[in-house]
């Protein structure tokens, strides 16, 4: 290294090697010391032989130099003191738990459908509950894995012990990724300042997270910050940032949403603002109700709705986020689509009050009014999804004529339903789905479960597993493509107690349907793996508890 620096007398040798002796003649090296003498002597040896050729002398001199450089290298000296990680107080996880973590992390590299981050999150949850930590050599891997998954950050912090903060101090990239938790020790003012700074300077995703965090902490500050920059934002940033206002949405947001966001040139931005405004008792909601009142009336004599379609999409409707060519349902005409959009933005409770009808009655009349029943039903489903009104939700679920999976509005409602209500809906229908007859209802079970990503309750998990166990024994079980392609995902959503029942699923080599067998195996393997993780922490906890007992 030092021998070949520009100031070194030997640097010329390297230069000659790069350029070649044809272009740069080999000069005699004039350097003192043993090395200089040795290199100098090389050109004098064998003066009568072919080896006196300059290229031969050069390679020999370079060889000497190379050995001298390797043998005489000097170490670099560091003077800075290393900061030591504080001693860990938590116990390490057991070998068994750790082996299971390694197994899950390996799934990540395989591109598995299992979405390992969900399993990692579960592993970390058990680890945090057991008040244990991952061995220090695994901490960087977890920090790297969770860098962009903010949901994992608190769990990683809990499970990495003192090494978490220590490594964050040493790694700028991790520090900025995990900074939300890095602020935990700071006071609110400092926190707000740093979030504001991030929003003003960072990339879009970080800005969104900063705005979201600020919104949770100080909704007015977040609104002020967004208002200040809104006009300069790109169209997609505006939509993303407006979504952040859903947290802590209130009347204080109305001026901004009404006067700024709803006036935007882009219809997508206006629609997003409208969807926020209709959730608060705003001027917008009043306008929309007044508009809807023009188009929907009730004839109490013949117990029918009287529908008047909007003649045209005027500027005020357009400004209020009603879109000209929105694709709601191909069976709806243009004007019916406008009507459907308007009615979707009005809570059903308004009609209940205005017409003195129950939610159930409104739905029955809507589905019965032949000409506009589709538009009205879709609007009611949209409204039920948006305003979270239990009466109309329950009425729709009980209505045998409505299939939630037939329309986007139905799916929207399905996803908006409280999980307990969805579970009840499925459990009620479960016996009828297992009927192997022509009268059996359409098998929507697996589709429902595919569409809604939620953690199944213990009772629900057990009932579904019992259903699967029973169906496995049937000649024509009610499995299908949707089940086959989601088996592992279902296994991830199940309650951990599924591990107690999973053994009862009869999977054997005689099962002729390979797709079914594979799906059941995947589901079974995933549940077993999760259960094993759970057991590994449970047994370890028992061991440590009993050890503690002995010590006492």
């Amino acid at each position: 290294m030092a021998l070949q620096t520009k100031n070194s007398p030997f640097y010329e040798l390297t230069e000659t090697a790069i350029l070649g002796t044809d272009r740069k003649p080999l000069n005699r090296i004039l350097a003192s010391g043993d090395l200089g003498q040795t290199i100098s002597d090389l050109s004098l040896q064998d003066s009568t032989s072919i080896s006196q050729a300059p290229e031969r002398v050069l390679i020999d001199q370079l060889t000497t130099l190379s050995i001298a450089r390797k043998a005489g290298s000097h170490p670099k000296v560091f003077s800075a003191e290393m900061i030591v990680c504080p001693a860990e107080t938590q116990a390490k996880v057991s070998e068994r738990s750790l082996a299971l973590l390694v197994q899950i992390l390996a799934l990540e590299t395989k591109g598995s459908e299992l979405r390992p981050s969900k399993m990692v999150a579960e592993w970390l949850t058990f680890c945090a509950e057991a008040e244990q930590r991952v061995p220090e050599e695994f901490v960087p891997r977890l920090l790297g894995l969770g860098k962009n998954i903010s949901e994992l950050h608190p769990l990683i912090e809990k499970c990495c012990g003192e090494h978490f903060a220590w490594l964050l101090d040493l790694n700028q990239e991790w520090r900025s990724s995990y900074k939300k938790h890095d602020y935990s020790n700071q006071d609110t003012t400092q926190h707000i300042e740093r979030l504001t700074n991030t929003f003003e300077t960072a990339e879009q995703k970080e800005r969104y997270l900063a705005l979201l965090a600020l919104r949770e902490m100080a909704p007015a500050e977040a609104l002020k910050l967004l208002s200040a920059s809104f006009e300069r934002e790109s169209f997609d940033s505006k939509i993303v940032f407006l979504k952040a206002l859903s947290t802590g949405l209130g009347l204080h947001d109305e001026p901004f949403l009404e006067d700024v966001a709803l006036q935007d040139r882009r219809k997508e931005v206006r629609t997003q603002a409208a969807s926020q405004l209709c959730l608060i008792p705003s001027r917008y909601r009043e306008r929309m109700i007044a508009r809807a009142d023009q188009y929907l009336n009730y004839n109490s004599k013949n117990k029918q709705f009287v529908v008047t379609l909007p003649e045209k999409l005027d500027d005020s409707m357009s400004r209020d986020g009603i879109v000209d060519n929105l694709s709601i349902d191909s069976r709806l005409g243009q004007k019916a689509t406008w009507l459907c959009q308007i009615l979707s933005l009005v809570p059903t409770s308004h009609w209940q009050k205005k017409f003195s009808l129950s939610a159930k009655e409104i739905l029955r009349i809507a589905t019965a009014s032949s000409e506009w029943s589709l538009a009205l039903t879709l609007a009611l489903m949209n409204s039920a999804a948006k305003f979270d009104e239990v009466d109309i939700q329950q009425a729709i679920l009980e209505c045998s004529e409505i299939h939630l999976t037939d329309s986007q509005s139905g799916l929207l409602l399905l996803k908006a339903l409280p999980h307990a209500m969805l579970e009840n809906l499925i459990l009620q229908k479960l016996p009828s789905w297992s009927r192997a007859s022509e009268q059996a209802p359409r098998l929507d079970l697996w589709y429902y479960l595919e569409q809604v990503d939620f953690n199944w309750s213990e009772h629900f998990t057990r009932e579904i597993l019992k259903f699967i166990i029973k169906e496995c024994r049937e000649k024509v079980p009610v499995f299908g493509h949707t089940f086959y392609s989601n088996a592992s995902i279902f296994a991830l959503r199940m309650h951990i107690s599924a591990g107690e029942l999973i053994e009862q699923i009869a999977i054997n080599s005689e099962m002729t349907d390979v797709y079914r067998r594979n799906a059941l195996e995947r589901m079974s393997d995933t549940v077993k793996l999760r259960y094993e993780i759970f057991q590994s922490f449970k047994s370890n906890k028992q061991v440590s508890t009993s050890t503690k007992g002995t010590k006492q």
Partner: protein
Amino acid sequence: MSIAYTAEQILELAPDSSAAKAGRDLAIASKWKNLGQNEQSIWGECQGSGAKPYQTRADLTGPAFKCSCPSRKFPCKHSLALALLCSANGALFEEKEPPAWVSEWLTSRGAKKKKETPEVEKSPEQLEESQLAKDKRKQDRLSRVQAGIEELDLFIGDLMRQGIGTVKKQPFAFWKSRAARLVDAQAPGLARLVSECAEIIARSSDWEDALIDKLATINLICRAFLKLDELSSELKADVLTAIGFNQSQEELLSGAGTCIEDLWLVVGQYSYTQDRLRVQRNWLWGKNSGHSPLVLGFAHGTAPFDTMLIPGLFYRGELVFYQGSLPQRALIKSKCSEPAVPPFVSGLTSVAEALGSYASDLAKTPWLDTVPFLMQEVIPLKATDGKWWIVDQAKNALPLLVKEDTGWQLLSYSGGLSLSLFGEWDGTTLKPLSAMRDGNYLRLQTVEV
């Protein structure tokens, strides 16, 4: 009782990543029945796709495995899963007498070990004749090598005349064809060094110095070969080994090589592929002797390596060293694992001592490729320029050749405190292979160069 190997150690034995994954997936108690163990072995039956379950057994002293499944991989996924299951939850394995299919296998393994290949007795005339033939073959090869080296000498001379700056534009074949000519000249060791020149040039920066070093090494070996008769027998052996002459393993094992018995820690291990041949480098460290032999393993495709060693484990046994002025490579004559011994061996205590030891090694074998360094009491750190170092108690530092992930893993493992680090030193950087602290061993991923 559970197996003394950790899950990571067991997975080191997997022939490839898919076998490791499949092994992990199968390591679930519900997939197994009739699990059992005794002092020497573990066994179990795993239900596969066939009607009969696969019978899987492992001899823990090796370790060695056998399974009735038709997989060509070794160890198969069932073998790995059995060991993983035992490592994770040994309570599942009932202490009992092994069934016949286990005891028969153990007996046959024992018999194989004891079996000695009977030497076919040769008459003195036959012996003389075979020695003459051998000498002639060696002489013929030396002549071919000499011709190859003379050609290589001209090639290097051309490079020096035209300048190494011109080779950056040369295609890979420029070096490959030169290496192929050396293979034809029966000098595979030199051929490998020439091939490495192409890899050096492919690097984006700092290739000139590295290329000069490599050409210097090649030149040194060539010059030494041309003066072979003037060298000592050890140095002669070194030169021939560097060129690619193999020392007969049979001869070494039958007394030609120095045999050392010790408790050996597998202190570093990594593998790479060279011309479709998988090569595994196992660095061992003698607890009592302080020797650090290199045991090479070779395998084609997914076949298992001929030597099965688990990093971080001690083996008691005899190693036979290849001849040379700085005996480094060794053969395993006998081994028996000692998983209960915590991984600790003493090594070099300072950077200055390490560099001094390297310089004296270079004096003995100037074309030395890499040497093992076991550095004690060093702290890993990341400098402000982003490079990784280890620093000793005197604040002297050595640069590390390490992947970013591995650097952080090492740093986290140390917690800012000192640890023991083992790696290969090539004269400019240390490639870390493992770290040890408080009786624990951590294998480190190596960087591909």
